[in-house]
Every structure is written in C-alpha cells, then in structure tokens.
C-alpha cells in the first residue's frame, strides 16, 4: 500500500539551499544523468513509455509516446522546449519547483534531450517570476561548470546547450504552438495542426514540448525504474504528482501524492475548508476545467476519474471556493481573463469572449433577463471547438459548468437586481473587520 503522500519532486525543498548544485547532488542529484548517459537513447524513450508518465501540463498525453514521434531520420536539428510559462489560473506547482530545485528540472532536461537526440534545449519561463529566472540561470551556469552541460558531457560524446528564455506576459504562450511562435520572436499565436511540433516545431524542426513537472519527473524514473513509477497511481494514471490547493482552505499549498487521491483526502490534509464555512465549488485543474461541487469530493483525481465527472484533471490546480463566493462574479472574472488573453487570431474566440463578457457583466449587475442564460450557452456552443487552440474551450468551461450547477444563482441576480453576495465576506481579512 502506497503512502498517502509521496514526495519525490518536492522531497528536497526543505533542504539547505536546495537550489544549489551542491545541495542537489547531496540528495542524489545528477546520478540519474550518469545512468542515462550509459543507456541508448531509445532505451530511455522506452523506459519513459513503460513508466506511464503522462504530461503534467494539463492535456495528459503520454510523454514517452511524444518523444517517440520525433522522426530520427529527419536531418534537421531536434529541439527540446520546456513549457515553464505557468499561467493557467489556479496553477502554482512549476514555479515553486523551479524556485526551490531548478536542478531537478535541469537534470530532466539533459536526460530528455539526450533521449530525443536534441543538442539545444530551451526553458521558456514566464517573464513575471524574477527570482525563478535568477535561479534557473544560476542552475544552468553551475551545470556547465560541472560538465553536466556543454561539449562531450562526462565523456559521452554528447553535446547539449540550454538556453533560459523569459517570456513577456501572455497567457496564450502556455499553448505549445503559440509558445513556439513566441520563442521564434513573434507574437504568441497558435499554429494550425498538423503538422504537429514533433514533425515541424521550432524553426520547422522536430520539437518536443513538455511541461516542467513532466520533465522534472524523468530523473526519478531513470533512478528508480519504470515499475517503481507505475507502482504509484491508478490503472491508467501513473506516478506521483503535485496537487496545488488554494483558496478557502485552512492550510493551502502543495501536496505531492500518487494520482487518484480525492479532494476529500486532500482537504483533510489541508485542515479542511476555512473555519466556519463549507465547500461550494472548485476547479480540479485550473479555470479552464469545468467547475465541480461538493457532490464530487470522492472523485479520484486522475485523468479518467475527473473526466468521468464531467471535467478534466488539467494541472491539478484545486481552487477551493466556499459559500461566501458568488459563482457569477467568479465566472465573470475568469471570462474577462480569457477575453484579455485571447490572442485575436481566431474570430470565434476573439469576438466570442468579448460578447461573453458583455452578457455576463449585465447579468452580474442584475440587469439581464432569463433568456440571457440561453444566449450564453448558445454563445459557448459557437465558441467551443471552433478555434485553433483550446483557449476558447477554456473560456466556455466555467460558464457552462456554473450554469449547470448554479443556474438559480444567476436568476437570483435578476430577482434582486444585483449581486446578492457581500464581496468582503469572501476575503481572507473579512473576520479581521478590514474592508475598503
């Protein structure tokens, strides 16, 4: 029986200066790199396939399979790009990982690049996290000094350069093809697929793009074996992962557990919903995943379980909202976010998110009509699945799911001619008597 929490990625976060190479190596760091360099690249791809690791950035695509799609007979250079543009509302796992232990990611980058036969790798980190950028730069510098990067790494004949690349503020760049355009020095706008990045990615060359947590999981798989990784989790969702609890819980934070833990178990560990309040709604994996309610406390938080409950595991960003929060206000704010972040390339998203805000803002002020609720659903229907990327699909998620579970609350705004909630009641300082 596996323990309730299984810290692997977070295991050294309480060590002394874990962001330094010396500290990381004291906890076994870079041993997996030496093992990996003694293996054939294809063996590593098979190992990651056998482990069952699936992408931790939201989509859950099998990582080893992604690597296997790289056409090795293509004469162009191969690239590894790490998606460190963590921006999905609620998602806050990659930033603490890179702040505390950037070498965990970097060791994963080197092993993964070796596996796909890339000689240049990029870490695309969002620009708004200054100290994380510092720690990544320092880790890369230390890795070069130790011979973990550069020419003929540890006498293997393998060369690798890593570039830390900071973005400039655009949620859409977390979408992998928009990220590639941005990394090419362009506006971050998604590309039509096919061709997929594995065939024509960065500079139209074969490219693997993986999330930080996915790549950071690779050294532990090399060190401990595929069966070890697969011994954690559920039948089709293997391994340990970082669950991020935020919002109205007593002790919010990061919980590294095998896939399949439930919100009920996680809430117990986090000390429950804040004192004197009860769970109203939550996101399982960021704002783009349909909200769930207190009916869903026992849903296994793995790819299949959350899917069966009508949502998506996403980034395992569990945002917890208690009964003081107006679901219409929450949904409007998320919708304003999607409107702001729409890159403007596809008409249904660019125009649709604008109209969604218009209708929702009117409803939130209690000025709409009951027909507006059907108009909203009709708009969602015209946006969902009609753009190059999933941003617009994400915009529809909170609206469709909140209407599914809380239609009466929308109508209550119309009945009282405004929002029936006190916005101060939901704040962390509500009990302290502070207000604007």
């Amino acid at each position: 029986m596996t323990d309730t929490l299984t810290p692997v990625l977070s295991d050294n976060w309480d060590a002394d200066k874990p962001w330094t190479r010396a500290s990381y190596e004291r906890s076994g760091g870079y041993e997996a790199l030496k093992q990996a360099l003694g293996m054939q690249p294809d063996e590593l791809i098979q190992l990651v396939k056998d482990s069952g690791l699936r992408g931790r950035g939201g989509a859950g695509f099998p990582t080893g399979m992604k690597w296997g799609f790289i056409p090795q007979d293509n004469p162009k250079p191969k690239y590894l790009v790490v998606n460190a543009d963590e921006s999905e509302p609620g998602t806050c796992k990659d930033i603490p990982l890179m702040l505390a232990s950037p070498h965990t990611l970097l060791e994963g980058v080197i092993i993964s690049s070796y596996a796909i036969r890339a000689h240049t790798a990029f870490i695309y980190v969002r620009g708004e996290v200054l100290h994380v950028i510092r720690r990544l730069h320092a880790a890369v510098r230390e890795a070069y000094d130790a011979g973990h990067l550069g020419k003929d790494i540890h006498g293997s004949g393998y060369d690798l350069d890593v570039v830390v690349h900071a973005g400039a503020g655009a949620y859409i760049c977390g979408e992998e093809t928009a990220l590639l355009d941005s990394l090419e020095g362009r506006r971050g706008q998604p590309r039509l697929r096919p061709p997929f990045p594995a065939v024509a990615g960065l500079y139209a060359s074969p490219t693997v793009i993986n999330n930080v947590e996915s790549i950071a999981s690779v050294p532990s798989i090399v060190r401990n074996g595929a069966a070890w990784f697969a011994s954690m989790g559920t039948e089709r969702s293997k391994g340990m992962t970082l669950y991020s609890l935020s919002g109205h819980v007593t002790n919010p934070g990061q919980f590294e557990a095998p896939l399949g833990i439930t919100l009920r178990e996680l809430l117990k560990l986090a000390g429950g919903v804040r004192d004197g309040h009860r769970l109203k709604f939550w996101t399982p994996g960021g704002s783009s995943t349909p909200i769930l309610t207190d009916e869903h406390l026992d849903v296994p938080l793995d790819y299949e379980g959350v899917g069966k409950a009508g949502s998506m595991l996403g980034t395992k960003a569990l945002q917890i909202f208690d009964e003081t929060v107006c679901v219409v206000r929450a949904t409007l704010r998320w919708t304003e976010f999607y409107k702001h972040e729409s890159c403007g390339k596809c008409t249904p998203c660019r125009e649709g998110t604008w109209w969604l805000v218009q209708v929702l803002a009117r409803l939130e002020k209690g000025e709409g009509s009951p027909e507006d609720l059907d108009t909203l659903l009709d708009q969602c229907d015209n946006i969902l699945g009609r753009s190059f990327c999933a941003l617009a699909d994400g915009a529809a998620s909170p609206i469709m799911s909140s209407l599914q579970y809380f239609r009466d609350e929308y109508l209550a705004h119309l009945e009282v001619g405004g929002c029936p909630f006190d916005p101060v009641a939901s704040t962390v300082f509500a009990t302290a008597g502070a207000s604007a």
Partner: protein
Amino acid sequence: MTLDATTYAELREIAGRYPQPRSGLLPMLHLVQSVEGRVTAEGIEACAEILELSAADVSGVATFYTMYKRRAVGDYHVGVCTNTLCAVMGGDVIFERLKEHLGIGNDETTEDGAITLEHIECNAACDYAPVMTVNWEFMDNMDPSSATQLVDDLRAGKEVRSTRGPRICTWREAERVIAGFPDDLVDEGPAAGAPSLVGLKIAREQGWKAPEGDK
C-alpha cells in the same frame, strides 16, 4: 536618451544565444526597457536593425505582450492579482485601496515616478493568495494594510524584501535580469514559503515516503 554601444553589443549578444537571431527579440525588448524605462521608438529601431526586420514587425511583437510598456514605468512596478481566486480572497479590495491611497488608476504612475500600479493576471502563486508583486518579485498573503505599508516603504526608499525572494531592486534592474543578464541576488530569500512545504511537512511527520526504487 540614446542607446550606446554597450547596449547595442548586449542586444547583439542576446541574438547570438539562439540558433536563429530573431528568437532573441523578447529578451532584447526587455533589455531596451531596462535601459530606456519603456519600449521606445529608438529601441524598436535598434532591435529591427540588428535582426534585419522592419520596425513594424518589431512593434507588432512589442505591442502583443503585457510586460512591454509604452509609457515610462516607475522605479517600482506594483502588481495586484485580480484574477478570480486572488480577487475574491481580497485582491479586489487591495487594488481599490491602493488606487485610492496612491491617487492613481490602473497602469498609471505616481507623480514622483516611484510607483506604477497595475492589476495583473494569475502569477502562479495561488496558495499564497492574495498575491502582489513588486518588480515581479512575490509579495505573498497581502491585505489592504500590508499593501499600503508596502507602497509607503517603497516610496520612502526603505529596503523592502520579497516574501519569497531577495531585496527588491528597481524595475529597470529587474528587466535586465529578465533579459538574461543575472545580478548577484540568486542566493537571497528562501527555497520555499510555508504553503509550498505544507504537504512535505505532513509527510515528514507521518513518515510517509515514495516507495523504494526497483533497481
């Protein structure tokens, strides 16, 4: 202000980090901001010249991303997260209080050039809500009174430290680091705040571990 030879050399150095120079454009624009305090027409021309692009191409990129500013930014860019979770936890109240306290609106700068206030989107620190940033360093678990104290301290020139990072540098210095020219502050600040460690702490107390490896 004119861009000097050192800046031109550094812009070229950035372009040289990449297999294709245009990939350097985003960090190059960050460097322009660190020198000029915003993205200037001259900075756009310089990037265009080095990358052999039109100024219109560079402008098109510069206007797409929210971190690039057309108007001069103060010494301290103060961000308040008003995405849903931070907003309901107190971000909206904090932002209103700061606008009133500083007498400025969103994306505006105080007359003394000290503070530029902006409401920001989710900055990946939700377990520390309500979250603020100063020059893109985290200021965690804020409330209206700590927020007003923070901006008062910044305006008074007092040393301010990030709750999960080092002492706060100026916005221009921060932009230089983002452009890929690190300073010497990497070892300041903790590895993690308490929420990042909450699960790990429970695991230690309970003796919970990942299984032993199979090789």
